[in-house]
């Protein structure tokens, strides 16, 4: 699939110097996107967390240790490793805004996309979803419930994009020229410290565009060529260095990050 350019590029900048790892984003995401609860979530290789939070450390001994929390949504790569490999076109990057879609009724569950994604942003439904009795009444109308056997991932709360477009249409405004904050995902909305900023990376007025242009901004595994639409931000050198793999000699100069 050839690289598509869009007028609008939805992006996220996550300020790792503000994230406390509280988990509110992840839970808000779960509620918003109808991800079922898990009684035993201790095997983290089997849990589904569209917004997964990693702990980073500078690896130093007490008292020089520093840590940072890194929330990891889907990177909505400009050059996705996942969508090109899907044999049945269940995941694509073809919509204005650049969100990588995932269509559950099309997915055949081959999991090739999961093998392709270096961010582990994709999750498989190992079993049918189960909500405790009655809790299925709290399902939002925004995202269809997924059966077993299909892959899912963060969609930047795409339904909110749709809702914002409907609102714009109702207001007689241009649905493709949304004002800042007309559309933000549940995680960004929930974040108590405002560490997650969302907007159009191509609109220089949007905060994301400004933050992404900062010298403190970086992207995960950028040198693989995935061209993510999610940026991270940290003034701490060691945090930025953990955003990608570097050879020892590359780190000495420190210019890569």
């Amino acid at each position, binding site marked *: 699939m050839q690289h598509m350019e869009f007028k609008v590029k939805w992006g996220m900048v996550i300020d790792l110097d503000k994230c406390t790892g509280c988990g509110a984003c992840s839970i808000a995401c779960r509620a918003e996107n109808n991800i079922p609860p898990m009684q035993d979530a201790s095997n983290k290789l*089997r849990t589904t967390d569209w917004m997964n939070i990693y702990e980073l450390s500078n690896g130093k001994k007490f008292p020089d240790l520093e840590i940072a929390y890194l929330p990891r949504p889907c990177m909505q790569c400009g050059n996705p490793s996942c969508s090109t490999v899907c*044999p049945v076109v269940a995941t694509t990057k073809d919509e204005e805004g650049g969100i990588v879609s995932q269509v559950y009724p099309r997915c*055949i*569950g081959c999991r090739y996309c999961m093998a392709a994604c270096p961010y582990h942003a994709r999750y498989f439904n190992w079993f049918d979803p189960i909500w405790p009795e009655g809790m299925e009444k709290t399902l939002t109308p925004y995202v269809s419930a997924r059966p077993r*056997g299909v892959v899912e991932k963060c969609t930047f709360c795409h339904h909110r994009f749709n809702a914002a477009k409907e609102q714009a249409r109702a207001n007689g405004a241009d649905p493709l020229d949304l004002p800042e904050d007309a559309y933000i995902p549940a995680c960004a909305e929930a974040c108590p410290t405002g560490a997650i900023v969302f907007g159009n990376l191509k609109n220089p007025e949007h905060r994301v565009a400004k933050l992404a242009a900062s010298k403190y901004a970086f992207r995960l595994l950028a040198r*693989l*060529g995935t061209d993510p639409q999610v940026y991270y931000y940290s003034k701490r050198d060691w945090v930025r260095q953990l955003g990608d793999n570097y050879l020892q000699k590359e780190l000495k100069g420190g210019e890569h990050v």
Partner: protein
Amino acid sequence: MSEREFWPEGVERCDLGKFLAWLGFISIFLLWGAYGAYKVLGTGIGVTALDNYFSFGLWITFDLAVIALGAGAFFSGFLRYIMRIDELKNIINLAVIVGFLCYSGAMLILVLDIGQPLRAWFGYWHPNVHSMLTEVIFCITCYCTVLIIEYVPLILENRQIAKNRFCHHLAHNFHVYMPLFAGIGTFLSTFHQGSLGGMYGVLFGRPFVFREGFFIWPWTFFLFVASAIASGPAFTMLCATFMETITGRKLVSYETKKLMGKIAGLLLCFYMFFKILDTYAWAKGILPGMGLTFDQMFNSEAGYGKGWLWAELFWCGIIPAIMLVTPAVRNRPALLYTAAILDCVGIVINRFVFTVQALAIPVMPFDQWFSYSPNWAEWSTSLMIVAYGFLVMSLSYRYLPIFPQERALNR
């Protein structure tokens, strides 16, 4: 009509009771696997040890391994019918059956391995032409059909079935067109063996398997083709030998086996040459480009140490390659078989590390190594496919004239 009348002409087989006991033994694995399959299809793939990090595991390794080893079918067919190496007629039937079993077995495993088998046909109806897997789906299903077409005339040659004139003619006509099918099979097979390699080679998020391209194909495309044809003939030859051991009868002349060994050896040399070049270029070029080092690709604590690499390249690569091209080694059965086994093991290791180790390596610097070991649900179903192979092979051996030399060799 006694059961003996169904045997191929002029050969001896064990008595029916013994044969049925053997089938009963095989059925234990079939039943266990059927239970595993029932759990997988009925409740979900969660019953396996697969997880979101190891989205591919034993099943995919098994599929890739048997498809590589089953390459004896298309390659022997190619040599026999296209390159006209006549000697291979003595083993070509076996190669076809082994190939058929490997491919149909892989397809059965895939039914379990994909989350929504009821939608498997989407691969045809909604294909993503950019995906290597689409190519694999097309070629494998097509080639499986070719193998069925190649297998059918063998069935029709059963002594009783062949009495029917229609069947007899049909079988004969099939044989006439066999070079055509061999040609189609060669084309399809080369492509999907390559696409299977390509599937990994294009994963630019997986530094362990990613390879730069040669035209539209990554290197792994060609490496997989080469490794498959380097191990397929050896595996076919081993199958024949294994059947001889079990049945106590001579089925294929040692000359033919030596020829198969020689073919495998030459191809293995060819493959190893490029594989070693590839590994070097990968370690020196691709990895540093991604900011990674060779050492970072291995972790013996997690079970993915460099031992696998040395086993694959040296013990099961260079060593059998040298052995197989050395006539003195080929002349000694024990050494020939050992070399053939090493050859096959090397290719299985290759498929294993490409599938599992590739996924175990943490790409994000703050991520960690995880290990994977298959559980009963994966073993039972995989063994079921092995048992299915034994079952079909046992029946074929007993009732179909597979080995043209059998009568002469056991006189």
